[in-house]
């Protein structure tokens, strides 16, 4: 093949990828919006020092509770700290705890669900009853109980939220494993002498990735919301580091009437992040659902 022909093929592929993306955006506009929100969230968290206009911890007694202005885009709090900069830096714990907790939840809940579905029998029965018990309690209550035992701080909060969201993952992964393990190709691999580990990793997990990806997007928004809730309740990121939840509690609630910007901006940030991730999750679910795939 000549160089010109190779170039034409590459162009066609590029156009094909661009076309696919545009088709996906047209097909799932809300999902595209969610993807933009998630991208912006990740970018802001990664580049917080470049985006923030002030030191998020620096107090200023002269600029206490000042409204939004060119100097302070989203005003200042009781300690004269720049709300915009704190909001930007607060994206970091939201992202770190959100993704971290999601991974903990997926790892723990996924492993337990996979084994529960694969092994079956009395083991499955016991695991599912424990899962039932944990699911009977709201995520936040479980997370608060775990933080109360482990103590506060970013890592512990991450673990607490991850543990609290794992039962749902267990349930979804188990439900997906049950039909897959009865497929002929799994039984064939078993007959050929494949180990349990190989069966799980090479034959079952790849075939249950679709529901795992969907549940991951759902759990990501749950984890971000749980982080904000825990910080709101005083169990999350410790002072003076900012988090959206702690910005909403404390000063935010105390000065809500005289300085509404203290609750409006963090409230919008939490809502937008959760909305965006949920919309993205819905789009991913739709994309993976064969019943919906040709319906648009």
């Amino acid at each position, binding site marked *: 093949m000549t160089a010109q022909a190779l170039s034409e093929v590459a162009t066609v592929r590029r156009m094909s990828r661009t076309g696919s993306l545009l088709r996906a955006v047209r097909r799932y506009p809300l999902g595209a919006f969610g993807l933009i929100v998630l991208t912006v969230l990740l970018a802001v968290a990664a580049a917080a020092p470049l985006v923030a206009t002030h030191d998020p*911890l*620096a*107090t200023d*007694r002269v600029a*206490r509770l000042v409204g939004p202005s060119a100097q302070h885009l989203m005003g200042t709090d*009781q*300690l*004269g700290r720049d709300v915009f900069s704190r909001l930007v830096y607060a994206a970091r714990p939201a992202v770190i705890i959100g993704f971290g907790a999601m991974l903990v939840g997926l790892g723990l809940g996924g492993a337990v669900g996979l084994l529960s579905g694969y092994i079956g029998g009395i083991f499955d029965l016991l695991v599912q009853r424990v899962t039932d018990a944990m699911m009977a309690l709201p995520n936040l209550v479980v997370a608060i109980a775990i933080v109360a035992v482990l103590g*506060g701080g970013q890592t512990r909060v991450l673990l607490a939220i991850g543990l609290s969201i794992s039962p749902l993952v267990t349930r979804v992964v188990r439900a997906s494993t049950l039909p897959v393990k009865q497929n002929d190709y799994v039984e064939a691999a078993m007959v050929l002498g494949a180990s349990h580990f190989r069966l799980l990793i090479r034959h079952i997990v790849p075939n249950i990735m679709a529901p795992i990806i969907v549940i991951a997007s759902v759990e990501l928004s749950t984890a971000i919301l749980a982080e904000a809730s825990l910080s709101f309740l*005083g169990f999350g990121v*410790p*002072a*003076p580091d900012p988090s959206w939840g702690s910005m909403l509690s*404390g000063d935010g*609630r*105390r*000065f*809500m*009437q*005289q300085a509404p910007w203290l609750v409006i901006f963090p409230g919008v940030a939490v809502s937008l992040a959760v909305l965006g991730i949920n919309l993205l999750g819905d789009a991913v679910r739709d994309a993976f659902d064969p019943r919906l795939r040709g319906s648009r």
Partner: protein
Amino acid sequence: MDSKYWQRPLSRRRAIKGGAMGVMGAGMLLAGMGCSDDDSPGGAATATATAGGSATGTETPGGEGTRGGQLRHALDRDPVSFDPHIEASFRTQFAGVGNAYNSLMTLNADLQAEPDLASEVEVLEDGSVRFQLHEGVKFHDIAPVSGRVLTSEDVVASIERIRTDAPEFQRAYMFEQITDFETPDDRTVIMKFAEPFAPLFNYVANPFSAIIPQEALEATGDLRQTVIGTGPFVQTRADMGSTFELQRNPDYFRADRPYLDSIRIDVMPDASSRLAALRAGELTIETRPTPDDAMLFQGDDKWVVLEHSQEGQATVRYNCASGPFADERLRKAFDLALIRQENIDLVLGGQGYLSGPVGPGLGDRWSYTQQQLDAMPGYREDKEEDYAEARKLLEAAGLTEFNPKFIYYTPADTNETNAVAIQQQLARAGIGINVTLEHLDYAAWIPQMLDGSFEVTVTTSGFRDNPDEYLYALFATGASRNDTGYSNPALDDLLNAQRLEMNEDARSELVFQIQDRLMEEVPNSWLYSAAGFQIHSANLKGYHATFSHNSPRQFVNAWLEA
């Protein structure tokens, strides 16, 4: 006093003057002990201080009040217990003790000690003090006391219990100077002293110096859950975490009091919820709003916003006994980097006062003036000299970097705000001190304070109505409230001397000598004293604001206008 006094805008000078009068009034009463050549202006004397060394019971001008109604109040959390001789929190006072018990004397809103259960107080020739009890004072009609009459033996047993030498009795220092008691009859108590004791009347009038019935104590072993007093209200409900209720005592010894039928106190941890409930008419009064919150209610004729100077001190406390802050140089370096006015501005919206060891609410006789403090190292606006001195101190201690662990507890909002502000002040100072903040629950904070494992912390302590409580109780070697482990034998001598000095001028001089030493050795860094605010609905009448521990007792004269 001008009836609008409490409704005028805050003036630092006026508020401090108000506090000063009360202690001077108590001092005048002490003049009757025959040990004083005090020539304080007579204007400060009140009906409680008569020239002959005796005082008679005074009644708040009555007759104008209206009977009936329920006063509703809310606390941020439960009291730990109801034992008046052990607890030290305003929550204990509001949820029961403050209105269910009486003391021999009581502090009015101007901090003047007035006779309460005592109808007469007399200083005898030998320096003993005789308290004559009102006739026919009855305890509440609750078993096992069942409405029996108060006797002088109850008074002796109560004072003896307060001065029990055990860690939980934090106010033993109040009555340790009493050498003996005499009870010539059921209505007379004589307290004997080897030497005169200057703060006696303040301590007798303290809201925690409650007179309890002996058999209630014997029946339960302690008074943590039992509330049986002689006070104007009877505790009828104590649901921890929920509601406390007190009903009017029909047998109260002042027949025309109280006006209110009942007081209900709900537990509402969230300050915004309390303010919302107040606005919605579900509460009658909020007694601990922040200055910023209080400002939101000012100018609206549906509310009365009261302010006073009798509020607690915010202090940085160093562990002087062990750890890095046992080195005085490190304490001083830390102290010099602080910017007190910034804390006042950030935490209180500017509504507070600089404070030395004795809070400014006691007035210039006992406390440094604001002008004096403004010029002191660590307090002055120009920080460069302070920072240079702090660097020298660190260098002398062999340190270029110092990273102490700074603990604080919540839910007290001001602790966290103060801690964050101090962390930033130290970072900005660039002297090499950087603190690591550690937030604890109160239940985790207290053990570190008690076992001396903390390094440095910030806390706010309640208002004290006399200098002895600011000084002796906190800094005397081994004193029951000395949680910093500070000890200085030379200062102990001065602390004891001021307790025994009946001449107010001479005592004041001793008090300032003590404060000068404390400012030099810095066992604490005194940040500020807050302006106290209270908000109540305009139909609550006859109520005067005072410091948190003493405020519940003012409900006896309050009524609700239809």
